[in-house]
Every structure is written in structure tokens, then in C-alpha cells.
């Protein structure tokens, strides 16, 4: 037994090679950067390009390792390498490259190294969340995402709004981490182990063999509520979303882009690992709920998140706040997938729909932020709606790209956003479960999702209207050079958004195999 555990521990390194590459690059950057900057904080011009390229190379290496890695049997070691791990790893590496491109010119030369390093550390943290097979490891990975995020929010621009945004994020993030830890401790108390595989085993067998019904154990109920609350912060699920608009507004645009996507990946993957252990496992394990309380809780969370996100977004006049609330509402859509996916497996999987939507959402939201970065004027970022006025006259190609992303966020064809919503509709409608008599909650969810899709159209359309139907406010010539990296990122996202509509087969098949 001990030898076995030892071998598992030793073998674990093999399972996280891409993350080791990323973290090694982080160390190199942190160590080397101070030597290239003078005492007064001045760096040779153009140094940021070198750090950007280094990040891309590191991501490419991690990608190569990812491509050559395979599934590993589930053990009691600290890491797993199953379908979900590989899926998330691929997603982070691709979206990480796009984020590096977005961040390219956001930090000045002297602070570029540290902020790029933080970004890579965050990406490694996301991968480790997906690879964690132990509550302790899971918590460490979650913190590996959180702590560099504070720096990432602050480093590029150290003005008052950025400080305020960072402080807000910092305090709430600490609070949510504490709640998650609290939940973990109850889970440990109920099962007597921190190993996820062992916990799953305990649930699967204890519940049916012995008389004790583990899912109904009050300790587990407390743990579930705490975990959902703590991870809800990362999803920006209502009522844990309060920080989002302020932070999006105050933080640099690339950091807002990162926040709109990466924490959602983290939150959903962690929830999937804890609540739906069958996801992505090579072995066939029963899909189970941790506790009956989870479903109604998540149901209400999804409904509140969709409605609050969309209704609040209707009232915004600041583009970044608007996108913040839009990201809240999309978290609600994805929660719909999670809720219906947690039920006994049906013909169309809600989890599959959720994972598909996650990819699509990444492409369209990062694309939208990429356009915002590329469209910024030399003296001013894109902040209020007025800054976008008449963009179709001044920068027609950018306006066209942004409208494609916005139509995709609305869920209109021919964009991938349409197929994403369509999958959620199908999953929710085909599930048909009832948790109280005569109340078909998943179909209600589908209907509410439909209402929200129509609500959302209003503010996305408002943005498009501002770009196309209004005249530019500031007509002076802009001398700023082309923002090439974020343009490249926008084009990549555009290709994904449109491409996934016409050829969704590969991704669809892949995410479905993760849950079956």
C-alpha cells in the first residue's frame, strides 16, 4: 500500500509536465527581469516584445507536451490525467496564447516580464485545477490562480482605479477561498480522506452498501453549499458577482479579458470535479450528485445569474461594465448546462453542452476584448459607449469583427454562439427532470434561458447600433500604430467563432466523449 502510494507520488510528475514548463518559465521571468531594468525603473524600449515571445514559446512547448500526452489510469496519486484534464489543458494553452497577445502592449517595458509571468502562472494554475485529484492539491491550484491574478490586475497600470479594482478583487477572493477551504474541511470530515478518487469511492459504495446514506449526511450538505458559494465567486454567479463590474472597469483591458474567461473555466472545472466525478474519467463511474441540495441550489443560482446579468447590463453605459454583466449572464447560461447535466445521463448531455459553450464563449468574449484593445486611441482607451460611436466609419474592419462577436454573444447565426445556445436548449429540453411534483424544472430553465437570450439581444444590439448608426464623436486623425498582436488575436477568435458554426463536429464529438 505504501509502496503503491509512493509510486503514485513519484509518477505524478509525469502527469503535469506542461505545467512544469510554464512554471519554470515563470521563475525565469521573475528572476531575470530585475536585471534588465535600471534602478529608476527604466527598461530598454521594446523589451516587452521579448517577454511576449518568451511567453508564446513557453506556451508552444507546453502545447507540444500536451499534444503528446495521453490518458493515464486513475490512481490515488495527487494528479489525474483524464479526458477533462486534457481538454482543459488544450483550452488554456490556446486561450492563453490569445491572452498573451492581448496583453502584449498593455504593460510598459519595465513591468512586462512580471505581468506576463503572472499570466503564465494563472494558466498553469488552471491546468492544475483540472489535474488535481486531491482536495489539498485542488486548493493549492485554486490559489495558484488567485494570487497571481492580484498582481496581474495591478501591474500594468498602477493608477487609483486599478488599485481599487485590485483591492476589491483581493478581499473578495480571499473570502471565497476561505469558504472553499471550509467546505473542503467538512467534506474531509464526512469521508475521512482528502483524495478525490477515494471520496468518490466512498460516496459510490458507502451510500448503497452500508445503511448510512452519505449524500444525505448534513456534513456533506454544508460542504456542498460552501463549495458552490466559494466557487460561485469565480463564476461570477449572482449573488457573488458584485466585484465584476467594478473590477472590469478599473483593471486594464487585457486583465478584464482574462477575468471574463479564465476564472469561469476554473470554477466550472472545479465544480465538475467535485460534483460530477464521472466527467472525463477513463473508468466508468456512476454519475452522482454530492447531495440532493445541490440541484435546487444551482437551479436558482442559474436563474438569478441569468436575469441579474442581463437586466443590469441593459442599464450600463460603460462598455467594460456592460461586458462584465454580460459575462455574468453567460455564467448563468453555462450553469443551466451544469444543472441539467447533473441529472441521470440522458440522450444529450448538459455537461457536454456546458463544455462546448465554454469554448465558444472563450472565443467570442476574448475576441470582443481584443477588438476593444485594438480600437483604443492613442490618448484614450475604449471606455464609454461614446468611445465606440461611429467605429464603422473610422475602423470598419474592427467594427465588423466586433459585431460578429456581439452577434455571437447574442446567439444569432451564423456564429458559434448560436450552436452553443442551441445545445443548451436541446440538453435542457430533453432532460425533463422534476424535483418537485409537476414542476418540470429543466424545461422551465430552457424557457428562462430563451427569455434571457432575447433580453441579452437588446444591449448587444445597442453596442452594434452605437458603432454603426451613430457618427464618431472624435473625428481627429489617430496617429497610433496598428495594434498588431491584438488584431491577430481578434482574427483568431473570429476564425473560431465562425468556424465552429460551420464545422462543429470535431469539438462536439470531443466534449461528448468526455461525459459518456
Amino acid at each position: 500500500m505504501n509502496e503503491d502510494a509512493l509510486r503514485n507520488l513519484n509518477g505524478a510528475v509525469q502527469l503535469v509536465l506542461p505545467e512544469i514548463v510554464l512554471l519554470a518559465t515563470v521563475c525565469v521571468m521573475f528572476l531575470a527581469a530585475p536585471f534588465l531594468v535600471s534602478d529608476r525603473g527604466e527598461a530598454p524600449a521594446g523589451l516587452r516584445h521579448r517577454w511576449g515571445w518568451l511567453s508564446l514559446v513557453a506556451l508552444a512547448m507546453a502545447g507540444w507536451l500536451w499534444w503528446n500526452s495521453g490518458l493515464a489510469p486513475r490512481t490515488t496519486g495527487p494528479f489525474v490525467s483524464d479526458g477533462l484534464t486534457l481538454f482543459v489543458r488544450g483550452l488554456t494553452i490556446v486561450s492563453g496564447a490569445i491572452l498573451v497577445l492581448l496583453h502584449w502592449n498593455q504593460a510598459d517595458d519595465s513591468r512586462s516580464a512580471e505581468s506576463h509571468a503572472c499570466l503564465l502562472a494563472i494558466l498553469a494554475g488552471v491546468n492544475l485545477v483540472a489535474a488535481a485529484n486531491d482536495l489539498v492539491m485542488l486548493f493549492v491550484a485554486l490559489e495558484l490562480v488567485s494570487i497571481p491574478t492580484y498582481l496581474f490586475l495591478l501591474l500594468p497600470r498602477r493608477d487609483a482605479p486599478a488599485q481599487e479594482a485590485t483591492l476589491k478583487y483581493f478581499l473578495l477572493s480571499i473570502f471565497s477561498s476561505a469558504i472553499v477551504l471550509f467546505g473542503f474541511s467538512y467534506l474531509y470530515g464526512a469521508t475521512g480522506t482528502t483524495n478525490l478518487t477515494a471520496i468518490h469511492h466512498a460516496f459510490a459504495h458507502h451510500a448503497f452498501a452500508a445503511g448510512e446514506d452519505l449524500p444525505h449526511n448534513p456534513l456533506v450538505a454544508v460542504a456542498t453549499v460552501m463549495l458552490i458559494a466559494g466557487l460561485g465567486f469565480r463564476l461570477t454567479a449572482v449573488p457573488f458577482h458584485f466585484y465584476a463590474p467594478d473590477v472590469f472597469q478599473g483593471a486594464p483591458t487585457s486583465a478584464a479579458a482574462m477575468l471574463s474567461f479564465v476564472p469561469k473555466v476554473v470554477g466550472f472545472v472545479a465544480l465538475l470535479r467535485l460534483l460530477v466525478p464521472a466527467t472525463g474519467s477513463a473508468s466508468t463511474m456512476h454519475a452522482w450528485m454530492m447531495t440532493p441540495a445541490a440541484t435546487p441550489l444551482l437551479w436558482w443560482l442559474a436563474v438569478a445569474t441569468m436575469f441579474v446579468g442581463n437586466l443590469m447590463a441593459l442599464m450600463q453605459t460603460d462598455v467594460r461594465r456592460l461586458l462584465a454583466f454580460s459575462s455574468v449572464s453567460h455564467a448563468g447560461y453555462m450553469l443551466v448546462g451544469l444543472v441539467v447535466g447533473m441529472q441521470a445521463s440522458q440522450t444529450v448531455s448538459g455537461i457536454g453542452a456546458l463544455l462546448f459553450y465554454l469554448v465558444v464563449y472563450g472565443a467570442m468574449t476574448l475576441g470582443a476584448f481584443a477588438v476593444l484593445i485594438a480600437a483604443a486611441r492613442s490618448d484614450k482607451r475604449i471606455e464609454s459607449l461614446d468611445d465606440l460611436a461611429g467605429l464603422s466609419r473610422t475602423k470598419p474592419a474592427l467594427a465588423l469583427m466586433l459585431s460578429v462577436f456581439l452577434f455571437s454573444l447574442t446567439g444569432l447565426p451564423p456564429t458559434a454562439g448560436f450552436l452553443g445556445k442551441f445545445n443548451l436548449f436541446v440538453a435542457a429540453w430533453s432532460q425533463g427532470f422534476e424535483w418537485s411534483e409537476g414542476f418540470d424544472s429543466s424545461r422551465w430553465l430552457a424557457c428562462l434561458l430563451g427569455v434571457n437570450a432575447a433580453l441579452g439581444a437588446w444591449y448587444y444590439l445597442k453596442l452594434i447600433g452605437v458603432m454603426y448608426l451613430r457618427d464618431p464623436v472624435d473625428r481627429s486623425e489617430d496617429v497610433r500604430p496598428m495594434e498588431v498582436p491584438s488584431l491577430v488575436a481578434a482574427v483568431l477568435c473570429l476564425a473560431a467563432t465562425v468556424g465552429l458554426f460551420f464545422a462543429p463536429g470535431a469539438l462536439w464529438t470531443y466534449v461528448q466523449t468526455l461525459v459518456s
Partner: protein
Amino acid sequence: MPSLFVVMIFLPAAAAALLLLLDAKAPPVRARWTALLATLATCLVSLAVASQFLALPETHPNERGPVHPRMEVRQVWLDVAQAGPSSPAVKLEFYLGLDGISLAMVLLTTILSISAVLVSWTSVRERSAEFYASLLILETGLIGVFCAFDLLLFYVFFEFTLIPLFFMVGIWGGPLRRYAAGKFFIYTLAGSVITLLGLIWLVIESYRLALATGHPLATPFAIPDLARFLAENPLPAELQAALFLMIAAGFMVKVPLFPFHTWLPLAHVEAPTAGSVMLAGVLLKLGTYGFLRLCLPMLPHACEHTGLPLIAALSVVGIIYGSFCALAQNDIKKLVAYSSVAHLGFCMLGIFALNTEGISGGVLQMINHGLSTGALFCIVGMFYERYHTRQLSDLGGLAGKLPILAVAMVFTSFASIGLPGLNGFVGEVLSLIGMFKRDPIYAVLGASGVVLGAWYLLGVLQKAFFGPLQEPHHGHEPISDLNAREVATLAPLLVLCVWLGLFPQPTLDLIRPDVEAITKLYAEVRAVRIAPTAMNDQQTQKPGEPSVNTAAADNESAPADATKPAVSGEGRP
């Protein structure tokens, strides 16, 4: 050679891409010539496709389902089964096809697009490349809707048409354009989201039913396959009713039927002329076409028992209400917009008569309304370009000053009113005859709309064209009559109005097999409903009441020749 008809769908979009990507700053001259050539080419291709279509042999009625495209191209879009053994063996497809009804609508679209380009020739001066690109993209979307034979693909094109029209109204429209574009977009989108949910529900229930009967459906999203399956294995009645209401929601907004019509006058008034032409001419038909393509063949029981009373009542209210609203207008464009509400009421009345005369009349009315209202909007646009006003109170006695325009206006108004010998007559009469057979009350009430229609349109003619000359005094250049381009804009539409009025038979023959395949379904629905009760009720049935049994029997024998006497007898004055 099916590839030609794929070319037809995407040719306008390709031209639009050319305009936008290669030549975004093109001078108006180049942009409009490109657009004109593209629409002309599309029209020629569609005529070639039509000749190919007519050369194909007709499928025997017993070998086809209720929906049966004579030409088709299928390409797998998403094969769900690949995901693993537990996934349903279902495919989504890029399934494009053509049957008689869709061919007629495609031809209408390609012809109206030419007029739409010509009518914007001088009125659109700024951002013309983008304008024509939107118009061409809209054309692709519209042709796509009519050619889509996969449920999801249908919905994709259906939704997609919103985007170019939103820009057309929002950028090149009148003073309230932004509000109008937003309202139009949100209103129709909200309706069609419900439709999407309904369609998903329909597919899921059919798929489950198919699994239960032991013949799983590999392509439940393909409209012909689904319709054929549902014709043999109808869904339960209550489910059909619920599905009908959900699916109809989006189409009722699009048509628009009475309580959902408020977006239409606003959008019409604010849209540029070409936008109004396409909106009235083709976009509204997407709603009626949706009913015809999705509701009628798939949910016969619900159409018969829920749809007929509901839609007929709403249509009648729409006819009368729309006509009275039109009577009250001072703005000619708004008047024409409200007349659309009334005319589409006739169309729906015909379709929901659910017999061969009614549906044929409804389809014909779709084409007629496209031609005559399209021409009316063109004329209103030409008017506005000259006088910069559309107010009836500013105008009078223009027939002397603008004789050709006056002739065109009188002619188009008569076509729209339904004067015998012109196209409107055939469609209205067939629709009303169809409805009369089902429920005389709706038909009689609807017929009153014909009188009201004559009232408001003749009122316009009298006020604006005859009587003492009255012109707005300022704000316009010297007035000249129609030039060659404007004549070319109107001529094809007017020629078609006469041709369809005098010789409706070729069009009726074109759509007949598809219409009869649908009505065959309804003969069965009525027979099934009556069969058990007729036995018990034989004593209680009063001799004066028309027996429904005979009506059903009538209908079964009727399809083959029902349209011919109705038309040849009354179509020619």
C-alpha cells in the same frame, strides 16, 4: 446539376463580400453597378434553376411525404452519433432543396431584389457599398430560407435575415431609424426564440416517438423526413396544440398577425425604400412560409383544431383593423404598411382554410402581395425623392404633372385592390373560397376587407393624383416624370401582375403537387376525427347541418381539379 442552385443561394453573398472586402470605399457608381449585375445574374441563375426544376419528373403523390423537395443537396453538418455509443444517432445537415412553393418564392425574391437595387440608385448616396452589400446579403438569407429543408438550417437563415435588415433600417432609414431598427429586431427575435424552443421540442418528441415505434429517425431535423414520419405517426393532440402555439409565436410576429403587428408600420416608415420593398415583398412572407412549411405538414391536428379558429380570427381582425388604420393615415408609406397587415390577413386566411383552394390562394397571395406592395413602395419612394414629402394633405392632382407615375400608381393600386384581370383578384378569391368552404363567417368578414381596401387606395388616387393640382412649394427641385431607370424598376413587377392575373394556371400548377400533398393530410385528419363519432351521432345529427363527413370526402376528390374551375371560371373577366 444541383450545383447551380447552390450558386444561386450564395452568389449575392459573394458579390456582397466583393463589395465589402475589396472595395469598401467604392464610389456609388461602381457599388450600384456591381449590385445590379449581381442581382441580375442571380435572377438569371434562378430562372435557369427553374427550368431545370421543371424538367424534373414529378413524384407520384403516393410515393412522397407531405414535404418533398424535387431538387436537393445534402451535406452533413454535425453527426452527433460520432460522440459515442450512448449519443443519439442523429445528424444535422446542410440540407438545401427546392419544391414548387419555394421555387415560386425564390423567383419572387430574385426579381424584387433587382427592383430594390434600381430604386435605391440615386436615393442612397452615402456608404453605398455597405448599403448594397447589406441588400445582397439579405437576398442570400431570404433565398436560403426558402431553400432550407433542415429545421435548424431554416431557423439559421430565418434569424440571419434580421441582421442585414437591421443595418438597412438603422443606417439608411428615416428620422426614427434607430428606434425602429431596434424594435423590429428585438420584437422578431423574441418571437423566434420561442419558435426555436418549439422546434427543439418537436424534434425531441418525434425522436422519442420514433424510438418507441422501433424505426429510429436518423435525420429528425430534415423537414421532409420528419413530416413523412409524423404523417404516419401523429403526435398526441395536446402536445400538438402546445407545439403549434410555440412554433407559431415567431411566425405570428413575422407575418404579422393582429396583436403582434406594431413593429411593422414603424419599420416600414423608417426603412429606406429598398428596405421596405424587401420587407413587405419577401420578409413578411417568411412568416406565412414558416406556417406552410413547418406547422401545416407536421402538426395537422393542431392546425385543424387550434390553428384554424385562432389564426382565422386573428387574420379577420387584422384585415379589418389594418384597413381602418390605413384609412386613417395621412402618410402614404404608413398607409401602404397598414394595407400589408390587411393583405397578409387574406394570405393567412387562405392558408388556414387547410384545403387546396385556400392554400393555393394563400401562396398566390404571398406572391401577389410581394409584387403589388413592392411596386407600391417603389412608387412611394419615387414620390418622396421628388417632393420630399409623403403627406397626402400636401399633394393633389399630380396625374397631369407626372402621367407615367400616375399610370403606374393607378395600375398597382388596382392590382392591390384585387381588380379582376390583375393578380390580386385570383389570390383573394381563392383564399376566400377556401375559407368559405370551412367557415363562411370568417370568409364574409374577410371579404369586407376587399371593400375597405378599395376605399383607402382609391382615396389615395383621388386625393393625390386627381382633382386640383397641389404641390408642396419648397424644398424640391424641378419635377420630372419617371426616367428610364424608374420605369425599368416598375415594369417587371407590373408585367408580372398582369401575367399572374390573366394566366395564374402555370403558377398554380407549379405549386399544386406540394399543396395537394399537404391537403391530403387534412382529409385524413378530418376523417379520423369524424370516424368514431359519426357512428354514434348519426341519429342526433340534424338534417340541415352539413355533414363533416361529406366535406372530408369532397376534399379528397377535390384536389385534382379544385383549382382549375375556380380560376378559369372567375380569373378572367
